[in-house]
């Protein structure tokens, strides 16, 4: 993109967002970008930094997400246990996992500077470690990375970055779900891997920026979890190469959001136009109409990943989309996207259009067999 076009594009995104500040993405949000890459509504809203949670609330479809304070407390307690005494527990794990020598114990808390300096301090420390390869520190606690997403800087806070003599960096991800007899819940490991991949990408971007080889950031992240039912931490290396390529692809797509914007009305905006008291002054109907201008690609998986899920599910239901029932069903229906259409084909009340002959035949047969068997 040339700079003029880029500026126009970024302006367009600002207009879409309107008067609200851009919502910064955390690692979880960035990881979620890769969850439903086919959805234009989500891609556009994310690129513009729209607060989807607020938007969904305003149109009357709040997302069913919430976190229990028990889970939050547990997470915090476990993280501080792993990090206490200069990361003593983590050091034991890394000695086992990465074969650190006894001399490698250094610890630096990036948060020792004011919060406004944390990002540049992280940069300086990583640069020094990479340049001198001196291993003064193994642990960089509370680092702050940044990642540029469609013109907006998101700040990311990995748990710990580990540096090894020999010049490799590892992202350490501390999670409080249990690893029981060597096994953790696959969903949770997958989510942790997606999140850690965002940190790997951010650190690699920083390394490249500083003129170092980005590949010195390992694609193996260190996942630290409580072992069995106790609090004692255990660790495993998780290869996030796949998550990295998915993420890389998705972030490149973000810049292609430009093409998604092309067909949209010029005056389209998702602005809530909050008044002085912060209460949106824009009518919910108007915002609903604006949202409907950008096509969504709803799938039941959205229910666990996207703030807009309830809105999009409602829309899918209202227009009788087979997306409502899940991809598997849609596949079984040979890609027929309307529920009425599919039923019509099955019951013979609707003629198959070109290309639908095969699926129509199958559905009619299925319908006959079902009727026959239930008789």
């Amino acid at each position: 993109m040339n700079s003029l076009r880029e500026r126009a594009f970024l302006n367009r995104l600002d207009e879409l967002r309107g008067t609200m500040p851009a919502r910064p993405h955390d690692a979880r949000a960035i990881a979620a970008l890769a969850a439903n890459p086919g959805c234009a509504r989500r891609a556009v809203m994310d690129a513009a930094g729209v607060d989807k949670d607020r938007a969904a609330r305003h149109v009357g479809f709040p997302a069913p997400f919430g976190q229990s304070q028990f889970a939050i407390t547990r997470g915090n307690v476990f993280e501080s246990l792993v990090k206490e005494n200069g990361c003593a527990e983590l050091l034991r794990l890394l000695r086992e996992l990465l074969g650190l020598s006894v001399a490698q114990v250094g610890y630096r808390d990036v948060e020792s500077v004011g919060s406004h300096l944390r990002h540049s301090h992280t940069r300086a420390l990583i640069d020094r470690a990479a340049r001198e390869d001196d291993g003064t520190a193994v642990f960089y606690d509370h680092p702050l990375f940044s990642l540029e997403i469609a013109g907006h800087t998101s700040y990311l806070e990995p748990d710990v970055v580990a540096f090894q003599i020999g010049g490799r960096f590892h992202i350490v991800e501390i999670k409080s779900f249990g690893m029981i007899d060597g096994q953790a819940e696959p969903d949770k490991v997958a989510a942790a891997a997606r999140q850690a991949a965002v940190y790997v990408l951010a650190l690699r971007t920083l390394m490249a920026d500083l003129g170092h080889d980005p590949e010195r950031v390992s694609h193996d992240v260190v996942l630290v979890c409580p072992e069995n039912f106790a609090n004692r931490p255990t660790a495993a290396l998780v290869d996030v190469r796949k998550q990295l390529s998915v993420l890389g692809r998705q972030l490149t797509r973000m810049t292609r959001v430009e093409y998604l914007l092309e067909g949209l009305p010029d005056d389209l905006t998702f602005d809530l136009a909050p008044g002085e008291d912060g209460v949106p002054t824009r009518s919910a109907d108007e915002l609903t109409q604006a949202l409907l201008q950008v096509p969504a690609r709803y799938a039941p998986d959205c229910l666990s990943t996207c703030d807009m899920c309830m809105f999009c599910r409602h829309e899918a239901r209202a227009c009788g989309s087979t997306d409502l029932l899940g991809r598997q069903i849609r596949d079984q229906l040979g890609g027929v996207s309307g529920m009425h259409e599919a039923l019509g084909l099955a019951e013979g009340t609707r003629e198959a259009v070109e290309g639908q002959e095969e699926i129509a035949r199958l559905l009619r047969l299925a319908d006959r067999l079902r009727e026959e068997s239930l008789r």
Partner: protein
Amino acid sequence: MSALTALARLRAVRDGVAQRITTVRHCHISDQPLVLIPLKLAGEAAAPLAAMVGTDPGHPRLLVVPQPRNRDLRFAFAAGLAEVLLPYIEGFEKSTETVERRGGEPYERCLDAPQILVPNRSAASFTGLLGRSTRFRRAEGPYPVHPSVPLLGRWLTYFADRSQQPGSSVLLAATEALSLHWATGQSGLEDANLAALLGWIDPPPGMSGHRAAEEAEDPLLWPPAGPTTDPGFDNEVLAPAIRAYEEAPTDRAVDRVSQALRTQLDPTWRLMWRAVDLLRSLPEGSRVKDRWEIDRGSFTRFVERIAEGSPPQARRDGAVGAAARLAGLERARASYDVQRAHDDPLLMAEYRLTGEAFAGTVIAADPEHSEGEGRSRKLRPLITVRTGDPVRLTPGTVVGSPDRRGHAAEIVEAVDGEITLKITKGMGRGRTPAPGSVPEPGERVSYTSLIDDFQSSAALPGPEQTPWTHGGPPEEYEPGDDDAQEEWL
């Protein structure tokens, strides 16, 4: 997921109510099941918070852990659960039957077996975790627990492991059992919500399934069926109650926690028994009894294992054990699928759709037809069936018939919807076929290449012959002190 199920889901959306996808029930439902609804503390792997448990819909027992991070209270909870569960299990141990078997010693088998019903798959997994965290405990030594706790742990482990066996009914997840028989107008993911699923299957009068399911998604109206509780409930109700208990562990404080948790469990308790009634209302498939018999055998063997004083189940399977288990699961899955298709024309229809089965009318029969000469002469009746199904069976394929056990045939020719079959089994020993063993012209028949005669297990070595590539022979699992004293925080 077949086109038939997809169609049923579309109909469910249109008609506003779930559609049957079977004609019969394919799981066993006990006359006296035990319903167990466990809740856990959010953020913890296996910290029990509460359970509602019992066999009488009118009298559930509520067990709570007023401070889930307290180890003693957790074990007290486990002992309380044992108090309900163990007598229930023991009630089935006494009455047995003697089973004769060809070429082997006769053995004893319990006449009935316990059945535990939990709301969903997560509850089944959590049951396994509760078993894992209690079965290695000891009644003596450091950190002693009540003697019933390790026994409870072994049983919970047994039930959770066995529930992974396709076709087993000793531990059923209600959402899975219901989804096996009904298709709703929502996705499979949303079917994991018991209240929503039942909303589709049996909506309140005057309400559509869709509306009922939507209502069921509101945690204020329908608390989640667990094991994880609603975060809003945690933050607004449970946390203050637990804090009050911490500050003053009085009976009143315990009551407060109990009352709070009861509000979360009561609705699910009622849903569970509604699920039981709905499943009972379906006629039972003919092979359900056979599979329950296998469950009874499995239960009996575990009772014996415990009586013999065998150690608790290992933390992990050895290499051979794991391979055998996997092969066993695959076999059970295949056999279970075939059995259900044979029991249920609606499931058989899925195979008719793919051409692996067909149904039609007999248009010609030659019951006296034979092959070979003299002593090797064999009776091979021929029949021709006309069908509208898209048959994809080639000549020589061996087929069976769901309508006739012990009957087998071979495809001779399949042309233009007319299939000629040669009957090879099930005619009796005489020179002419036993009466009724050969279908007559005009009769409706169905045949399928799906036959439940799976090879016995792949030749796996015994555990003591485990090759070194797989770690060599495993040591017999001897739970040690570490197991017994393992922290449970």
